[in-house]
């Protein structure tokens, strides 16, 4: 093992595997009523609870995944885990997030395929864009002239 690898594996200790304090603090402040504050100790304890929650759900989802004879923990395994552990009330919103995520992926694929389907190279597309810009500039110049803006008619104006 090289020195760098050894340092990297040493860094992955318990202390490193926690959630960012600033993020958690911000969320707590957003969730608390405005007349309450939270001690730093409490914030750190909440972080511990959150990490424990991740382990709880992961372990349960992992069991479900194995029973399912799959090798990869899927979002569906997470949803089942939440139900089994008494967190059914979270399921609707969590499934919403899954729907949005799938939609984002579909949108991204549509954008890529639109480019591929246009049959044009990047250079050709850039040229088309420049033509559109030029046309728009001409239209603007005409409109300004007709509105009495500049005294000189634009090129080609009749």
């Amino acid at each position: 093992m090289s020195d760098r690898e050894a340092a990297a594996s040493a860094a992955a200790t318990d202390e490193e595997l926690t959630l960012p304090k600033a993020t958690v603090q911000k969320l707590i402040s957003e969730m608390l009523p405005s007349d309450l504050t939270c001690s730093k100790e409490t914030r750190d304890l909440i972080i511990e609870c959150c990490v424990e929650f991740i382990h709880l759900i992961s372990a349960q989802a992992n069991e479900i995944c194995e029973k399912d004879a799959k090798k990869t923990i899927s979002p569906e395994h997470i949803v089942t885990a939440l139900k089994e552990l008494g967190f059914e009330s979270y399921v609707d919103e969590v499934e919403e997030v899954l729907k949005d995520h799938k939609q984002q992926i579909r949108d991204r694929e549509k954008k890529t395929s639109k480019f591929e389907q246009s049959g044009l190279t990047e250079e050709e597309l850039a040229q088309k864009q420049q033509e559109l810009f030029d046309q728009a500039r001409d239209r603007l110049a005409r409109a300004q002239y007709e509105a009495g803006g500049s005294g000189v008619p634009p090129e080609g104006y009749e």
Partner: protein
Amino acid sequence: MRNKNKVTKFPVARIKKIMQKDEEVGKVAQATPILISKALELFMGSLVEEMTKVAVQRSIRRVEIWHLKHAIEQIDTFDFLREIVQPIPDPTNGGVEEETSTEPKRRKKRAKVDDDD
């Protein structure tokens, strides 16, 4: 809840690392930590909500760890957290004693309750 347009989110990559710290956990689909991030947000919300109830009940301004402990002890689904909070002492005896400020106590205050001996 204030700030409905909040975009504060948990770091998804970090969640994945925390998941995989458990040696039993193998491969994880890309969407999975994203879902856990949402569940975590809701979980934190529940935790803070219960903690707030205890605080309001006791009319205090600053939430301390024993308030969180009390909240956890009241909710079944939070059973998995009991071990974490078990060692926390409650200086207010479960809310029976009046809570003073966080300055060091000089004298214990008695709650205004009739003592039934």
